[in-house]
C-alpha cells in the first residue's frame, strides 16, 4: 500500500466509525441528512466509474437512479408493503437493463456526442414518466408502506425505523466502495483506465473496447439504481425529478468538486455539495429579497466559478497546497 492509499484507508476507517456512532448522539434530522449524503456518495462514485476512470462523460446518470426508484414504487401494492428481498434485486435488474439498452446506443459515440446522447435518452425516460399516467405522471407516486425485510418469521431490520434505514445505507455505501476498489484494481479496471487514456491503442492491443465500455456502463447503472432504491425507501416518494437533468448535473458536479478519477473525491464532493446546498437554502432575507428562496441562483454561480477555477476539485486543491507547503519547507531548509 502506498502512503497516500494508507492515509486514505485510515481516514475512511475513522469516518465510517464516526458514521456508525452518529445515530447514538445526533437528532433525526442529521441522521437522515447523512443518509442522504451517503446515498448521493454512492451515486457519485458510480458516475465516477464512467467519468473519471473510463472517460465516459455521462450527463444522464440520474436516469438509472430514477428507474430503480420507480421499479420499487411500481411493485409496491397500494397500502401494502413490498418484499425487500425481491424488490431490491428487481430494482437493480431494472436499472441494469435500462443501462444495457441505453448503453448499447450511446457507447458507440464519443466526446460531445456521448454527453448529448446520454442526456437525450435520460430526458426521454423523464418525459415518459412525466407525461404518461404510467406511474403518477408529473406528481410522482408515494410508497405508502416501506418494504418489509422478513425471512420467514425473522426480521433482520425494520425499514420503518429511520436508524435502520440509515444503517442499511451505510452498509450499502461501504460495500459499493470496497466493490469499486476491487473492480478498479482488477485487470478489468485496468482496461477501463486504458480506454480513458487511449481507446485506439487499447483496440489495437486486441481489447473489444465496445464491450468493456458497455459492461462498465451497466455496472455504473446498477450502482446508480442502488442509490435510487435506497432514496425511495428513505423518502417514500418517487417523482420524475429523480431522473431529471438537474440531478444528473448535480452528481457530475459532486464528482468534479471532490476530484474525479478517485473514489474519495466523489464522497467528499457529495458531502460538500449537500452542505453547500443546505447553507444556501438557509440564507436569510435581506431587505425585501429572500436570499434562501433563490438558492438555485447561488448554486448556479457556485457551479460556474468552481468549474472555471477548481478543475481538479478539492482533492487537487489539497494536493497542490500540500506540494507548495513541502516546497516552501524544502526551500526553508536550504
Amino acid at each position, binding site marked *: 500500500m502506498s502512503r497516500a492509499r494508507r492515509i486514505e484507508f485510515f481516514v475512511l476507517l475513522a469516518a465510517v466509525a464516526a458514521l456508525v456512532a452518529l445515530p447514538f448522539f445526533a437528532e433525526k434530522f442529521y441522521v437522515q441528512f447523512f443518509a442522504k449524503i451517503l446515498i448521493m456518495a454512492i451515486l457519485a462514485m458510480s458516475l465516477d466509474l464512467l467519468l473519471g476512470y473510463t472517460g465516459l462523460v455521462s450527463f444522464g446518470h440520474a436516469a438509472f437512479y430514477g428507474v430503480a426508484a420507480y421499479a420499487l414504487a411500481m411493485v409496491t401494492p397500494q397500502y401494502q408493503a413490498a418484499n425487500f428481498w425481491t424488490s431490491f434485486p428487481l430494482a437493480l435488474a431494472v436499472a441494469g437493463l435500462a443501462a444495457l439498452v441505453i448503453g448499447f*446506443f*450511446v457507447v*458507440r459515440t464519443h466526446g460531445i*456526442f456521448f454527453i448529448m446522447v446520454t442526456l437525450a435518452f435520460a430526458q426521454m425516460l423523464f418525459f415518459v414518466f412525466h407525461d404518461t399516467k404510467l406511474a403518477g405522471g408529473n406528481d410522482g407516486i408515494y410508497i405508502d408502506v416501506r418494504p418489509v425485510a422478513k425471512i420467514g418469521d425473522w426480521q433482520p431490520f425494520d425499514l420503518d425505523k429511520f436508524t435502520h434505514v440509515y444503517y442499511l445505507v451505510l452498509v450499502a455505501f461501504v460495500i459499493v466502495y470496497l466493490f469499486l476498489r476491487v473492480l478498479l484494481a482488477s485487470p478489468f479496471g485496468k482496461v477501463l483506465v486504458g480506454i480513458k487514456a487511449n481507446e485506439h491503442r487499447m483496440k489495437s492491443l486486441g481489447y473489444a473496447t465496445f464491450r468493456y465500455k458497455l459492461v462498465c456502463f451497466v455496472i455504473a447503472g446498477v450502482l446508480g439504481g442502488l442509490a435510487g432504491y435506497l432514496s425511495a425507501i428513505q423518502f417514500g416518494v418517487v417523482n420524475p425529478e429523480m431522473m431529471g437533468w438537474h440531478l444528473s448535473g448535480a452528481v*457530475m*458536479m459532486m464528482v*468534479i468538486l471532490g476530484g474525479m478519477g478517485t473514489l474519495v473525491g466523489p464522497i467528499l464532493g457529495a458531502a460538500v455539495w449537500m452542505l453547500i446546498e443546505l447553507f444556501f437554502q438557509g440564507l436569510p432575507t435581506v431587505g425585501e429579497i429572500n436570499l434562501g428562496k*433563490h438558492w438555485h*441562483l447561488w448554486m448556479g454561480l457556485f457551479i460556474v466559478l468552481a468549474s*472555471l477555477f477548481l478543475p481538479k476539485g478539492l482533492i487537487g486543491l489539497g494536493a497542490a497546497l500540500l506540494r507548495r507547503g513541502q516546497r516552501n519547507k524544502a526551500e526553508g531548509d536550504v
Partner: protein
Amino acid sequence: MDFHFFLIQLMNGVQYGLLLFLLSAGLTLVFGIMGIINIAHGSFYMIGAYLAWSLTGKLGSFWLALPAGIVLTVALGMLLEWLVIKRLYHRDLLYQVLATYGLILVCEELRSVLWGDDVRGFNIPEALNQSIQLSETLSYPVYRLWISGVCLAVAVLLYWVIQHTRLGMKIRAGASNREMVQSLGIDIQIVYRIVFAAGVTLAALAGMIAAPVSSVFPGMGNHVLIICFVVVVIGGLGSVKGALVASVMIGLVDTFGKVLEFSVGGVRLLPELSSMTVYVLMAVILLWRPEGLFGKKL
C-alpha cells in the same frame, strides 16, 4: 386523413422544423467554430421569449419589442463570452458542460426573480392575426407562415455572411486554425465574441417569434434544448446543412407522430408514445451513422 388536413400538418411540421433550425444553428455554429458546447442554449430561447413578452408590454408593440430584444440579447451574449466563455476555450468538454449548466440555473432563477413563475400568454400581433381559408372547415394561421419566412430569411442571411463576407472569411479561418489566424494579425477574440453573441441571438430570436404561439412559461428552454441536441446528433455536429435537414425531419416526425394512429397487435403506440418518436429516430440514426448524417467521421 383528407388532403387539406394533411397539408396543414405538413406545414405545421415544416414550420416547427424551421424554428428548430433557427435554434440548433446557433448551437452547432458555436461548437463548429469555437469548439464550445453551450448547454445554456435553451435558456437563451427562454430569455428571448420572456423579453418579447415583457418588452411588448412596456413598448406597446411587438414590432418594437423585437429589435429591442435583439439588441439586448446581443449585449448579453457578448457579456457572457467576456465573463465566462472565453475562459473555457482550452478546457476539456466536461468543464464547458458544467460551467454552462451553471449558467442555466442562474438564468432560470433570474427569470424567476425578474418575471415570476407564472405562465404568460400574449397575443399574436394585429397585422398577422389572420388565417388563410383552405377549405370550408380548415384554415391556416398567417403568423405561422411568417415564422417559417423569418427562419428561412435567417438561414439565407447566415449562409451569405459566412460564405460571402470578410467577417465570414475570418470566422471560417478561425474555425480551422486559430493560431494561424492570430499570427496574421486578426483579433480572433473579437471574432469569437461575435460568433457567440450571434449564437445567443439566434436562440433568443427563436424564442421571441415563437412566444405568441407557444406562450411563455418557466423551464420552456429545457425541452427545446434536448430537441436541439437530437437535431445536432442526427445532422452532425458543426454542420449547418445537417442542422437544416435534421430539423425539418424532426419537425415532420414529431408533428405526424401526434396525429397519426398506429397500433401493433392491438396496442396503440401512436399517438400515445408520440413524445418518444424523435428519440427513436435518433437511436436509428446512431446505429446507422454514429457521427450523424452530415458529420465528419470521428
